[in-house]
Every structure is written in C-alpha cells, then in structure tokens.
C-alpha cells in the first residue's frame, strides 16, 4: 500500500493497522526518514517537498511492486509526506512485513535506497526546495 500525504504519520498506529487480524506475519521492519538540520554543510531551517500528483503515487507503487517481486513479503506500506517540513519532522515511512525477518529487512533497506526524494537515483518524484 502507498500513501502520499501532507500530514504526519503515527508509526505505531500504522504498524497496528498493517498487522490487524493477521496471524501469518512473523517479522515487521520499519524505516523512518526524517529531516536533518544540515545538508552539504548548510544549515537548514525548513524545506518544502513538492509533489507531482499522479507521478509520485505511480513511482511509489512501482517501487513497492518491485520489492514484492524480489522478496516474499506479506504486507508493505510506504508513506511519503510533502509540504513544508522542519528538522526532526518525519518525511517517509516504510513498513515491511514477512514471515521471517530477512525479507522484511532487505526490503526496508532496498526501499529506502530507492525512495524518491531520498535518493539521487530516484529523485524525480518529490522535489525538495530549501526554505532557508
């Protein structure tokens, strides 16, 4: 599942929702990307993540389906925020659930490294714009 939203997310609530009613899941891994107060030696006070509706969802769904094709995952959730963010704010959440721990860890790492907005390789979806 993927979600692109302006508001913050509650990691505990998202995990609870994901595993609700499921008895087949044995491992849940989460990755949370948060905003740092510096980038390339510059101090950042805030940044604005722009979002291209349609393309962001399409790219995140592609990443998620690629992850499911490569590893035996039972559930996954990717949330990417947009809008104005300040240091310490949550930016992205990846939750992966599998029967055993390895796939969940692998995908969490994979998703992070491919996440639009956090990787130079897939940076075309969310565009950061420093407000400093």
């Amino acid at each position, binding site marked *: 599942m993927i979600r692109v939203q302006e508001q913050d997310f509650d990691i505990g609530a998202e995990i609870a929702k994901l595993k609700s009613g499921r008895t087949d899941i044995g491992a849940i891994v989460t990755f949370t990307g948060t905003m740092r107060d510096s980038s390339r030696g510059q101090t950042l006070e805030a940044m604005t993540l*722009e979002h291209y509706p349609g393309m962001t969802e399409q790219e995140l769904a592609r990443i998620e389906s690629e992850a499911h094709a490569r590893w035996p995952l039972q559930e996954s959730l990717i949330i990417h925020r947009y809008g104005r963010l300040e240091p310490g704010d949550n930016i992205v959440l990846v939750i992966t659930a599998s029967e055993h721990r390895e796939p969940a860890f692998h995908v969490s790492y994979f998703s992070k490294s491919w996440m639009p907005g956090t990787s130079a390789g897939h940076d075309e979806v969310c565009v950061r714009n420093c407000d400093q």
Partner: protein
Amino acid sequence: MRLLYFAWVREKTGIGAEEVELPREVTTIAELIAWQKTRGPEFAHAFERSEVIRAAIDKTHVRPSASIGAAREIAFFPPVTGG
C-alpha cells in the same frame, strides 16, 4: 502540450504550468530543453544547468534522448539530495 515546472525550475521560469505549441523540429526532451533556453532570460536561466534537470513524459521519468511523440504533459524537476 502541457509543460510543468517544479521547485527551482518553477522559481526561475516564474510559472508552474503552461500550455505551449512546440515547434515541429522539437522531437526529443533534449531538443525541448534546447528550445526552452531560447524562450527568454527566465527560461535561459532555468535551463542553464540542463544536465541536472530531470524530465518526465506523462508522469514517467525519461532520459534526454526520449522521443516526445504524442506526449500530453512534460514535467521538469531539479535533482534532489538527501537520504
């Protein structure tokens, strides 16, 4: 043809979106960027470092050599750092 601009590309061009009629000789993203540079000082400035600008045709990321074909919407973004 609808053209969209994000982040500093938008700030430099001064517009977020526009409808344009492309010249017939513009058939690829690279040619479109070259044409953008001729559209006035704001566009020349926005596309000055064209090698770092990313493009998407109808919401799919493409390389500069990509053919525009029957595209309805082309978007331009700056690169992103972080992670």
